[in-house]
């Protein structure tokens, strides 16, 4: 394919979020700055006997508030419903008309795309477990598929099944916005929405679209998701104190806290944003992606892949590591991630490593898995806007090995010109996006 490299600058003109700390940008941001925790007992299903009994749920959310046509989206899964709320907010801010056949926003729908790092919808667990229970012959250790089918065919529901596919959140946003440009989705585990924003930025840069609705949506707070993470011993089991369970970079960190939500940014070419005369929130200046090629179970010990992705993003941005004012970490609160991420930051930022504030908002909103990167990127944009960086809460027992400035417990006022978002996916897919205060 021909290299159509253009000089298009890419800016953010709208943002929306539905997460455990709020159902819109401003209330979420206020909660983050106040150091609030969105973690509590799990209520979506009965997790009372699981090794972990808590999570960071989105509570009291009503997606019908965001659409004139809830009937059209009635079968949408949890992640898709979050995406609808976050997407509509972002479109409104960017002046993109939704739910109309005759948009008056001056945007060519063929030049508007979607790129989501979105997760699969939850399985119909009741049907799934019941069918297995009906069909399994414990003595023979084999499945009677006829018995299995009798239950599955009745209990599984067609639209629920269709809506489970990971491309469905993007499909709902396409219906809402009429986007006819490139529509993509990726699922690189915990790095998915950072990758979506990064790749979407590249699409605009090379002129494949003027606008891309980018971000992520995911919920893995369901019996099989939690079973999987619990068995991996990746989750915190601090059941007696859910609010302090997510404690990135602390010595006593014992795993991440499962969260859920959606976060969407409107990426737009600078020329389109100027033509439409919409406020510009920040500029996306760099993106880097790499793989560890190490083990599916562990990060590379030296943070090789992480270092490579950060380096690639810095090169892509055409800046020096000295220019970065703030790093929003992957910071999951697992022993492994936080120590390797710290190593990687030291390797890249050298003598400046301890001077740069690096924080993890997963301490407050938990880990949104596919949606995490975009949600965290949004806080980078807000840090630039308001001149204040979010804290890492629950930071009460520093790990002697980890000696960076993690912005402990209290948000900090400081000018931020350039902020970096790091995301590292399970299995070794690493993605980094750099945003900058917009200057003409």
């Amino acid at each position, binding site marked *: *394919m*021909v290299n159509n*490299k253009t000089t298009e600058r890419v800016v953010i003109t709208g943002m929306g979020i539905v997460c455990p700390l709020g159902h819109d940008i401003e209330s979420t941001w206020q909660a983050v700055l106040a150091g609030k925790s969105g973690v509590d007992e799990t209520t979506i299903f*009965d997790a009372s*006997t699981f090794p972990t009994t808590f999570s960071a749920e989105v509570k009291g959310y009503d997606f019908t508030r965001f659409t004139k046509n809830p009937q059209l989206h009635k079968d949408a899964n949890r992640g898709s419903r979050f995406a609808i709320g976050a997407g509509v907010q972002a479109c409104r801010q960017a002046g993109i008309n939704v739910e109309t056949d005759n948009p008056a926003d001056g945007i060519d729908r*063929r030049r508007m795309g979607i790129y989501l790092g*979105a997760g699969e919808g939850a399985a119909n667990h009741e049907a799934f*477990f019941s069918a*297995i*229970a009906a*069909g*399994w012959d*414990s003595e023979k*250790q*084999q*499945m009677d*598929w006829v018995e299995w*089918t009798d239950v*599955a*065919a009745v209990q*599984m*529901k*067609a639209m629920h*099944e*269709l809506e*489970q*596919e*990971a*491309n*469905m959140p993007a*499909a709902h946003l*396409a*219906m809402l916005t009429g*986007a*006819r*440009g*490139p*529509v*993509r*989705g*990726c*699922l*690189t*585990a915990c790095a998915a929405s950072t*990758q979506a924003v990064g*790749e979407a930025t590249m*699409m605009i840069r*090379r002129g494949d679209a003027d606008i891309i609705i980018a971000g992520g949506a995911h919920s893995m707070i369901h019996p099989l998701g939690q079973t*999987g993470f619990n068995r*991996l*011993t990746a989750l915190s089991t601090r059941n007696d104190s859910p609010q302090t369970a997510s404690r990135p970079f602390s010595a006593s960190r014992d795993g991440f806290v499962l969260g859920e939500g959606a976060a969407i940014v409107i990426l737009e070419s600078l020329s389109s944003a100027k033509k439409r005369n919409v406020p510009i929130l920040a500029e996306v200046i760099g993106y880097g*992606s*790499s*793989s560890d*090629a190490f083990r*599916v179970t562990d990060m590379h010990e030296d943070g*090789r892949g992480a270092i490579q992705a950060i380096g690639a993003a810095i090169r892509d941005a055409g800046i020096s590591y000295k220019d970065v004012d703030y790093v929003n970490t992957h910071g999951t609160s697992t022993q492994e991630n936080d120590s390797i991420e710290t190593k990687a930051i030291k390797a890249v930022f050298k003598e400046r490593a301890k001077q740069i504030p690096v924080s993890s908002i997963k301490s407050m909103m938990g880990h949104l898995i596919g949606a995490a990167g975009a949600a965290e990127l949004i806080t980078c944009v807000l840090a630039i806007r308001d001149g204040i960086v979010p804290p890492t809460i629950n930071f009460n027992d520093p790990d002697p090995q980890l000696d960076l400035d993690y912005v402990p417990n209290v948000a900090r006022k400081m000018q931020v010109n350039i902020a970096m978002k790091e995301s590292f996916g*399970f*299995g*070794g897919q690493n993605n980094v996006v750099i945003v900058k205060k917009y200057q003409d």
Partner: protein
Amino acid sequence: MGRTRVVITGIGVVSPLGLTAGKMWEGLCAGRCGIKKISAFDPAKFSCQLAGEVENYKIQQYVPRSFRKATKLMSRDIELAVIAADEAVRDSGLITRAIDEQKVNVKPERMAINVGAGLISCDPCELAPAVAKSIADGKFDIRKWGKEGIELVTPLWLLKYLPNMLACHIGIIHDIQGPSNTITCAEVSGHIAIAEAAEVITRGNSDIALAGGAEAKVNPVLIMRQCLIKRATTRHNDDPEGACRPFDADASGSVFGDGAGIVVLENLDNAVTRGARIYAELIGSGQSASINPAYEHIEPDGCGVTIAIEKALAQANISPKDIDLIIPHGTGVPQDDLAEAKGIEAAMDKEAGRIPVWPTKSMLSNTGAAAGAIDVVAGVCAMRDGLIPAAKNCEKMAPGCNLNIVKETIKTDIRYTLCFGYTHGGQTAALVLKRFEN
């Protein structure tokens, strides 16, 4: 900035017609059908009892000795992808860590990977002992599961079912350290993964990329899903070969199957410098969306189909009259086939009646995330041999479809091939391949 051209230098396929690209092509040319009665589980009470199953294989044969233990962490989707990647890399002449650790001729950090994946369903039998342990009063009890059942789930269970693990395993096996992505756009995952990997090369982030897709659809949960959504045909349980009938008047639904397709994409300069055999050039991609309130089908006029094709042609800088072959999505679901045909006709304008259209799913079944990549390989083989095999099961064109479906094998020069796909949900994607010319 000069032009960066992206070429295909290696192909690998696992399909119901065989475990290699060569076997698949042979089967397609011979008009063989890979669809049979399901043997992976007893489908007696399924409304559709057919699938495109892949013959038995030993995964250990496709990974380096040092990686054999890690095959325990592979779901079938991952295995299929790993096998196709092994073939594609060997076919390309590249020597990665997996091929020969002593003679590696690639730079790991200059290699990228992008493997499309489906929604991987776990094997119900694998969780059955844990479920059996969680029964109280004859019913599944989530509290028992959380305490006792869960203990019987193997600790690394989740890692087998994360869609990104296809790319991760291949990346580890072949030591690919550059950009890595996992496209999860159902049946266009393969198309998009290949398009995006090419973009990674054109923007200079890598010289070589492994790209494609894989999915194991022959799983009771996934086949049941297709039955419930009514995409699977129910009329041909006694006639597997005649079951999937894209664009045919008697079409009644699709048939699903297992598969994987991986291609090696390479910066042309890199390929020329190392003297690689070049199959074809990827010269354009285009994407759009179908917007339909009844989103279990694509919109009746196929507008999203038309836009994706138009974009791909524009990027390729060619017009419909240049296209020699179209490999459509063609699933055998009548309503969607008709909409796709309309979309293609609108994009091809006066040329629609001329261009040979060759649907492959009648023989290969619908392999989900693998389908696009498998079609790309089929297109590459067709261009290489100057041959379009006859399509199967389109005996009488469905009313309203006005396409030139390939009835008899055609021997002809093929310079440009268009591969196309769409999803339920609406994503559409088109790729334009060109026979390689210097």
